[in-house]
């Protein structure tokens, strides 16, 4: 088995391996580099119009309408998973997409593991910055773990029960022909 462990975090954007142009700076010290950097929300607020800065939301950040309005122009929004078992970020991402209509990149960072990428994607994360030791090919495969879903989410606007109704109508029409 090849040793996958390197310092680079495997990165997936819109379902494909991609190059990550952003640096994560969890504890910013001034001056910040003149390059794209993801910084904690408070630091981002200090230069929110700088397109080289993106906000990092903690898993406990409450997404109020006021905050969502602030975030609307961010070049990307990173949501932190301090532990993969902390599921708050799933709700945050869905709210950003479904309630507040954010269309930019939403990136999962932190303890992001292969076996969470399917649900993360369903909830609206289009960028996945996996933990350093994760296997990229496993993660790509896990994106296709399921071919359908019962519930609507960001990837699928309708619940399965509405598809079933349409299928039943189609079948009825076919059988009449």
């Amino acid at each position, binding site marked *: *088995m090849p040793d996958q462990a390197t310092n680079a975090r495997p990165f997936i954007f819109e379902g494909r391996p991609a190059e990550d142009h952003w640096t994560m700076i969890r504890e910013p010290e001034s001056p910040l580099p003149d390059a794209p950097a993801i910084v904690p929300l408070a630091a981002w607020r200090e230069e929110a119009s700088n397109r080289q800065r993106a906000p990092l939301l903690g898993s406990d950040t*409450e997404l109020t309408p006021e905050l969502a309005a602030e975030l609307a122009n961010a070049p990307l929004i990173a949501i932190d998973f301090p532990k*993969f*078992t*902390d*599921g*708050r970020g*799933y*709700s945050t991402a*869905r709210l950003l997409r479904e*309630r507040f209509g954010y269309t930019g990149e939403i990136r999962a960072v932190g303890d992001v*593991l292969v*076996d969470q990428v*399917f*649900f993360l994607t*369903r*909830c609206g994360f289009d960028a996945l910055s996996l933990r350093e030791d994760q*296997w990229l090919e*496993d993660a790509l*495969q*896990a994106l296709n*773990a*399921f*071919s*359908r*879903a*019962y*519930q*609507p*989410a960001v990837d699928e*606007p*309708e*619940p*399965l*029960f*509405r*598809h*079933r*109704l349409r299928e*039943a109508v189609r079948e009825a029409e076919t059988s009449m022909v």
Partner: protein
Amino acid sequence: MYRYDTHDQTLVNERVAQFRDQMNRYLAGRLSEEEFLPLRVQNGLYVQRHAPMLRIAIPYGMLASYQLRKLGDLARDYDRGYGHFTTRTNLQLNWPKLETVPDMLAELASVQMHAIQTSGNDIRNTSSDQFAGVAEDEDVDPRPWCELIRQWSTFHPEFTYLPRKFKIAVTGSAEDRAAILVHDVGLRLWRDAHGEVRVKILAGGGLGRTPMIGEVVREDLPWQHLLTYLEALVRVYNQFGRRDNKFKARIKILVKALGVDEFRRRVDAEWAHLKDGPQTLTRQTVEDMQHHFIDPERRPISEEAIAGYERLRSENRAFARFVTNNVHGHKVPGYKAVTLSLKRSGHSPGDLTWEQMHQVADLADEYSYGELRVTHEQNLVLSDVAVDQMKALWDRLGELGLANPTVGTLADLICCPGGDYCGLANAKSIPVAHAIQERFEDLDFLYDLGPVELNISGCMNACGHHHVGNIGILGVDKKGEEWYQISLGGAQGNEASLGKILGPSFSRDKVPEVIDNVLQVYVGERLEGETFVETYRRIGLKPFKERVYA
């Protein structure tokens, strides 16, 4: 009975493939113990005291005969020949081999079964009324609604890593047989003046370390909104439930901390955005789902046959005892629901051998249209037995040792697997159950006592529901020794209440005597027609305490 379509089957098959891959990565060392844990428990796989344990979902307690046969096959081929029905109406196999679990899940998928979300911090198997669809006091058949909830909660992308486990119970009857007051969410389905289904929603009930009775969040939600409302409610819990302390992470702590009014306000604020969205149920969807649960074409039963059954009951004392205790009324005249007691000497409460699983499956085919139900009291039910076949069924059950006429009595106790199996337990529970069953074997005494619910848990997690037992027994650890704390006055159902601790705990050998003393106080103090819990509520804890600690 719900039958999978290609969508359901595909999802379950894909789940098996996913878990097989996860198991392979774990065995190859590519997935750490800590990271594999949530994945395996979401597939029902625990690593217990002696061996792994696989908890198989029996959605809302409904089981087809061919499924029970398959469970018997699994117990025989992959385990030590028996299985254990739990208080959440699931089946646990206590000795599977870790690496064979993907094969077991594949076998389950072949009969439209799975172990999905039987553990983990996710939405668990929905439980319901064991007499759903046949109860005389039923306003709404809960099964189609349970299946809608099962589908909504299965692989919910947002709610797989909740602060803690989340259990939903549903009833549609006047008498609550699903313990909706002590679940994270309890649903009571009812009909308004126009005959439309409405849902009363309770939240924040639960047992465990901090037992609480659920509070009413909504009285009269129109049925169309069931899923959007649940989604809003669980979203509030996912965002605001505590994650810093495992013992304060259940929704009951959140409801208590916010107060039910503030909790309701937050849920309603969230729901305002989801209401009338794509998950709003349509009449056609509900009707299609109801079609899975239509009544069997029951053979009409003549007046003479019913009279013959009543005659036999008056003539045959043993048969009469069985009918009085184990046979429940049915909405169709001439039919009854029959409880098969899994409480008998020589077997742990709720256990069934693989042979018995096959035999009971045959009985379900012969006497009850091929369907069974599992109860949270750890028994099985044949829900559609014609009275003119009752005697024959009773004889057959007697041969199998499943006709103990003690359902609802002290002998029908609820008991978790305890320290004999469970890695969490502080103390053994099965030997306590056996000792009590042995001491109180006399049927006349049991009948004289009337309904007494005795529930045993081997630890604070309360899988044996000791808080809501009229008599509750809790195993505790005192300096490495097993002790037992007794509580009195708990109850399930519409008048659910939590028991009060009697006093200092006892060693195991003292427990039967303590129970005897408690019962003697009841027998001495009761008024005509008063049940144990009614007497307790009238006289309080003191007389019991004085007698037991005299």
